[in-house]
């Protein structure tokens, strides 16, 4: 992608939480942060995921920035569940029109 000027673009971030460490596994949680300000998202605003899998989001033009590492279970806490383990952070650069 050729970007003429960074000042003309804003970042959109899509957080997807998948059922396994595979990017083509089902999305079980999600969040969206829109740097253009065109849309606002908040807790509980969508009961259906925007994409079925992480791969579906990539095929729709989202670029993967980061995925969760696979860490071994902490000793003595092998059965303890906590935060969602498979987080995929994606971005899009979107042309920004201040008008």
């Amino acid at each position, binding site marked *: 992608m050729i970007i003429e000027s960074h000042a003309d673009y804003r970042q959109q971030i899509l*957080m997807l*939480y998948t059922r396994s460490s595979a990017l083509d596994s089902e999305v079980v*949680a*999600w969040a969206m942060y829109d740097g253009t300000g065109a849309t606002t998202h908040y807790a509980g605003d969508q009961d259906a995921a925007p994409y079925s899998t992480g791969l579906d989001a990539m095929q729709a033009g989202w670029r993967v920035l980061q995925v969760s590492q696979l860490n071994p279970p902490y000793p003595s806490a092998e059965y303890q569940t906590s935060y969602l383990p498979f987080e995929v952070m994606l971005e899009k650069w979107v042309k920004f029109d201040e008008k």
Partner: protein
Amino acid sequence: MKNNSVRRTDLLSTGDMARFVARGFLRFDGLIPDEINRDFLERIMRDEVRSHPPGTPLAECYATCPPIGALLRLPKVAGMIQSLVGLNPLFDHHAVHHCPPHQARAQDTHADSIVDVRSTAFDIQLMYYPHEVTASMGGTRYIPGSHFRRINEMAIARYQNIAGQQHVVCPAGTLLIMHHGIWHGGGCNRSGESRYMLKIRLNPTCRQVRLWNTDDLAALSVGPAAIFDPDAYRHQDRIQTLFERPEKWFPMDESRLETVNRIRLWRALIDDPEFDSHYWLSRLENQPE
């Protein structure tokens, strides 16, 4: 309010308790009579709902708020409380939640208090909805099965939406009883009317062992004859079947860990260290000398 033991038939059933252990909540739509709902709403408007110091016996609370005293004395409500936290629970705190109309966003998802490392004892939170909550009013959002996750309060705010999330859209007089660890948050009230909810947190003062109506315990606690026995899954009301059922959002590798969490709490609740489902813990506990 005065607290007395209730009739055995007003206690929770084993199936109710197993569902609470598996999913972390019980919901009773329209349980509270209209006269209590109306009286309580009027007292909210007059700012008459007073709290109590944490650790006060529940039986000594709400003398100055008769509708809440009456609510807590309803046999079904008293029976639920007694089944979960015993006959003489302590008042921890309460909060009258007011969501004004025309909100632009929701409260982020969180678990109350701070990270809680208790493995068997638990508090309950009563969430009482004195008026109808419509879809546009948002309602409380909660995540079934999230109660065993050891997280700290608002650290999960990044999770805007989780598959299977529930919104309390309900008739007046609905009561939701939650394990203290359930992830939840106030929904965005897009309507033109205020939304009210009373939350009361209660602490147990006794071991939480067989406090419910256990008459059906043996009948419902029948494990599968063999692992992956299809017959086991045809009996949807069996405790083991309830404990094996994943929530929509469970990561693939953690469904079995959540089953283990459920087994461990159930072992404590029935005081039976050998209870198991699908051989998950028996296999790991086998260490021949």
